[in-house]
């Protein structure tokens, strides 16, 4: 699984972008998106997913169930 951003709730504040250890987050069409193939759920870097910890709008960075669980290499 990877994380995804619910774009309708994203304020485009950009707080999550620099915090992602995998550079998985970028701006697209006025909101921010997570590239699922780059997201490691922060495994190997931090205890908490950084995008979730910093995002000012609750339940905006959420698990994307359509992706398989990330496995540490």
């Amino acid at each position, binding site marked *: 699984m990877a994380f995804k951003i619910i774009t309708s709730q994203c*304020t*485009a*504040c*950009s*707080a999550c972008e*620099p*915090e992602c250890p995998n550079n998985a987050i970028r701006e697209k069409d006025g909101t921010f998106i997570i590239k699922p193939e780059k997201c490691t759920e922060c495994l190997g870097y*931090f*205890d*908490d997913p*950084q995008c*979730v*910890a*910093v995002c*000012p*709008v609750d339940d905006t960075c959420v698990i994307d169930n359509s992706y398989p669980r990330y496995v540490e290499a």
Partner: protein
Amino acid sequence: MDNQASVPNTGSDQGQNLNQILQQVAEHKGCGTSSEGGKASCGSSTAPEDMDPAVWEKVKNHPCYSEEAHHHYARMHVAVAPACNIQCNYCNRKYDCANESRPGVVSEKLTPEQASRKVLAVASTIPQMTVLGIAGPGDPLANPEKTFKTFDLIFNAAPDIKLCLSTNGLSLPDHVETIKKYNVDHVTITINMVDPEVGQHIYPWIYWNHKRVTGIEAARILHERQMLGLEMLTAAGILCKVNSVMIPGINDKHLVEVNKAVKSRGAFLHNIMPLISAPEHGTVFGLNGQRGPTAQELKALQDSCEGEMNMMRHCRQCRADAVGLLGEDRSSEFSTEKVMEMDIQYDAEGRKAYQEKVEVERQATVLAKQAEMTDLEAEFSDLKVLIAVATKGHGRVNEHFGHAQEFQIYELSTKGSKFVGHRRVDLYCQGGYGEEDTLPTVIRAINDCVAVFVAKIGGCPKDSLKAAGIDPVDKYAHEFIEQSAVKYFKEYLTKVKSGEIVHAERGDADIRQGAYIAA
């Protein structure tokens, strides 16, 4: 982001000296003029002769420090910093940082390149623009690359523009070195508490060391970082102002403690702002019905802190991309689209010449007031009244009642006139004719005043004001505000003595809820 700056010894002699200097600056109130070369001359002996000229040079033309300079010089903000690293209960992050702007306002976000172009365009058009601030829409120091890139571009293109920034303080200690490097003129920290017990009711969480920290622990860390940041700024010789939001029932009494704590750490100004809270802002306080203070409660708290240090009462919580003098907002003239098309010629010489003219104007304002004061000092009365003034700047009564977006409030007594705040009102007159239903709003906003000074006023609003017990005064049109105020007070005293009018306490007034300029 991981490296923490080392902490200098804040108890050094250097820090002590700076404290003394700042204290002198803080005590030196009201006088705005100074001659060239840092030799201060207020038109009289009130000049701060023993003040370090370097500090005086920094503050004399600063619309954020000097209420008087605020009438003559302009500041602007650019919204380059959207991210924030904490959550405040009076903020909804769909909008701009509520610490620096009014809640419910959205500013146009700019890249550092767009922002510096905009600053140069404004500075070339409005020569009074002397200060550039970065205050949001989030926390400038949660966006260090964007903030410092903007400073870098402006620092190189227009070195005469003073730079300032505002922060919640959480990452301030990490950036004091860089702030010094760009010669940042002053930093504003929003400090709402010095006790985590109080803080936990204001801040639900902070983002700290890659974790979301909540509750009393969050407030404790924020408090420690704010105090450390303030001490480091003082030790580095950077002027620091503190903003506090007054939240009745949560930190209103506590702010007296905050005032002491920040003063002892070298803060040079303390600005207490009212909480602005309405359900439509979608903030925690807006939704749970937390009210803001009334005009009287705010003034009482500001008065009780005044003995402690210089209070700043002219902060108007303008939006993060505001441009202009006093209540004026010319930001629509400088949209990104327009700025990108402009042919910008940065005219440093022309700006200097203009600013010299402004100095002459300011000198005249101060002298006129002093001349008027001479026979008032002999009067004996403990009467105090408030008046409201409609002005567009330059220290004169020069705005029509119907065009005023805000009123400046002065307190008059035998000691003279003292600026005590401003009240925002909706535009009473839109497109040349008054809208009947907004007039009561204006009256409520200035209900604690005995008179309103205007350049011009129509017959209808004149009658309504009189009916509400507020004297509409247009005989001082285009005259100096403070000189006219003193004249008016002398007449008022005479009339009270002769029994022509009966002095009665006025009621309280409303503080407008909502954005200063609707987004």
